[in-house]
Structure formats: C-alpha cells, structure tokens
C-alpha cells in the first residue's frame, strides 16, 4: 500500500490480484451476467410471442435487440422495427392493440420522460394494455456519467404517472425472469393498462 492508502496498479498485495487484473475479471463477470440476463429477457419476450417488436437503440440491450432484429427472433409473421421516439412507439402500439395485435416495446429507461404524455393521454385513459421491457441504466456499474440523473428517477417517474412496473434485477433469480415477463404481459391484459418490466442487465 502506498502512503496515500491506494493500491499500486500492477503490484498485488497480500494475495489480492492487481487492480488491472480485478478490472479484467470484473469485465468478464459483467459480460457473463449481461449474456445470461439478456438470454432470459429474450426467452420472456419470446414466450409472449409478439407479432410486433418495437425497439429503440440501447447499448445494454444490444444482445436482446440483435436477437429480434436479425437473429432467430426475426421470423416470418413478426414485424420488428425502430421507433423514432418512445412516445411514437406508445402510439403505434396503441393502434396495434386496438387492431388485436400483440406488440412489445423494448427501450432504455432514459426514454421514459419522452413517453409520459402519450402514455397518460392514450393508453392509460383509453384502457389499452401495453407491455414495455425497459433496460435500466444508471447506478452501480454505469459507465456513462450523464445518464444517472434521468435513469435513477425511473421508478419515481413511473410512480408519479401511476404506471405499474415490475423490477427484474439481482434480487430475482435469472431463471425466473422469463416467466415474470410473461406474467407481466398477462397482467397488462388483465388490468387493461400499460405495464413496464424494468430489467437490469448490467449486473447491479
């Protein structure tokens, strides 16, 4: 240990791996968590069997999005497309719901603010069910410093809007995630309202 109380980068101390090695190990672990949780989210959405998947770009969702955009989830009879903004997706999904289709929205939580007006003037008052799978950002493990401010308020924003949400993170065994997403779809239909599943893919 140095006099300042820090650990020198490449000098293991008392059997601990060096900081560089720990960072590398953590990266491997986080990647494994990302892959396992992404696979669970994919399984959950596939269990819902949506005929329309609307998505918005997200680095944490890249495995999930790749599955639907050009992976095994891009199958005949299913439309997969990008919404330009979250509120546009909410409104398109409202039309799809009216037509009896099975849409699922996939996006990141920093877009929650964009969709509140559409959600609260369309889906909520018109009693239109909607399933949104929303990836979490911010908090421990977040690498992008600018995203904490909006993302850490996700639950508060949804609570203020009266939107029902469920959280999937390290407190729920990943083996249960797919079933929980499927249950959230059923819940949206049973309650005739939007339901958001907040999925933490980053290992926090």
């Amino acid at each position, binding site marked *: 240990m140095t006099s300042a109380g820090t650990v020198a980068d490449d000098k293991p101390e008392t059997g601990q791996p060096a900081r560089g090695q720990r960072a590398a190990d953590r990266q491997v672990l986080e990647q494994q968590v990302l892959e396992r949780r992404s696979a669970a989210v994919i399984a959950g959405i596939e269990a819902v069997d949506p005929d329309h998947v609307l998505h918005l770009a997200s680095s944490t969702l890249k495995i999930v999005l790749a599955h639907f955009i050009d992976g095994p989830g891009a199958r005949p009879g299913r439309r997969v497309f990008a919404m330009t*903004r979250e*509120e546009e997706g909410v*409104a398109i999904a*409202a039309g799809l719901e*009216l*037509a009896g289709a099975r*849409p699922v929205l996939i996006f990141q939580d920093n877009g929650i603010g964009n969709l509140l007006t559409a959600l609260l003037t369309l889906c909520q008052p018109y009693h*239109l069910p909607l399933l949104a799978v929303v990836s979490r950002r911010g908090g421990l493990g977040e690498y992008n410093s600018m995203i904490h401010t909006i993302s850490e308020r996700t639950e508060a924003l949804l609570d203020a809007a009266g939107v029902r949400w469920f959280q999937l993170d390290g407190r729920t065994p990943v083996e249960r995630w797919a079933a929980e997403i499927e249950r959230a779809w059923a819940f949206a239909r049973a309650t005739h309202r939007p339901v958001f599943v907040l999925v933490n893919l980053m290992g926090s």
Partner: protein
Amino acid sequence: MTSLDRADVLRHIDSAAPDTPVVLSLGGNAREMLAVAGRKGNHFISLDAMGQTVSVALGLALGLDRDQAAGKVIAVEGDGSLLMGLSVLSTVGHLKPSGLVVYILDNGVYLATGGQPTASADIDLVAVTAGCGWRGARDVSTAAELAEATAWALAAEGPVLIRVRTSQKQLPAGYFLEDPAILAEDFRRWLQSARSARLAN
C-alpha cells in the same frame, strides 16, 4: 387561397369512407367531425395525444393488415399536431403500410388554442413524404381537387398523404367529454364487427 373550410373536408371524408377506420386528432378535427357526422363506430377519437394521430393510425394499419383485404385506415391530422411528431413520417415510409391514408388539414395555426401560427407554410409535405419513402402525396385546396385526391388515395397502394389547405373558419362545437375507455371499446367492437362482416363475404 383555399375555398375549403375544415368542416367541409371532414364531411367529405366521412361521406367518402363510411366503413373505413378513421383516427381523428384532438381539438377541432374531432369536435367538428362530431358536429358534422355525429358519433360513428368507425371513428377513433384521440382526445389529447398531441402529435400521435398518424402513429396510432400506423399501428392500426399494421395490425389490421394481418388480415388479407383489410382495406384502408385513415388518419385525420392537423398541421400543428403533425409537426409535434413529424418523425413518424420516416417510420411510415420505412414500413410502407399499404392501407394507410393520411389527411393533413392544414390551416396554418393551432386553431383550438387561439390561432397561434405553426411552421407549416414553409414546409413542402409532398416533398417530405416522398423523401421519407411514402408512395404518394398531393396538395389540394379546392373541393374538386379533394374529391379527386380521395378517389386516388382510396384506390392507391399506400401509404399516401393528402394535404388539404383549409380556412381558419370554425364550426361552433362544444367540448366532447366521453370516457376514453368507452371510445376505445366502441371502436374495438366496430373493428371486430367489420372484420366478421368482411370474413363472411
């Protein structure tokens, strides 16, 4: 200069498409349609989702085209509301729902809130939709042009857009305060019954 009032255009749309799903934007479009046509099962009235009329109609057109020969879906949108969600034009152009017909009733202002100007006067919507990949668009400002454009739009492969220049004249029309849940359910039931009738034929 246009010779068309908004109420004339709404009356025309209702008469030309009595059995077609129509998504109406909030404010004057919805209220004046109610004034000239009354409550119609095929009309879905959006009471307050600003800028989202075309998006709702897009979802409807995509959802309904799972059925063969599902027909057209019409959106009746204002210029101000369209500009609140203009990016949907790119989504429509990308997906190309063949049944989608969009009317933009363009009076150049937010009439329902006192006539504040929009930016529509400087926008070439025909060029914008063409640039976004739509299959066609027309600008109209007379009753004859409107009738001809509607005949074209209802027969053409969509998505197509008709921009109708209208005056700023308003019909006296009160607030419409129906429960939105009832509006959605009425419309859904109309869709189901139209589908049943279509399948029976």
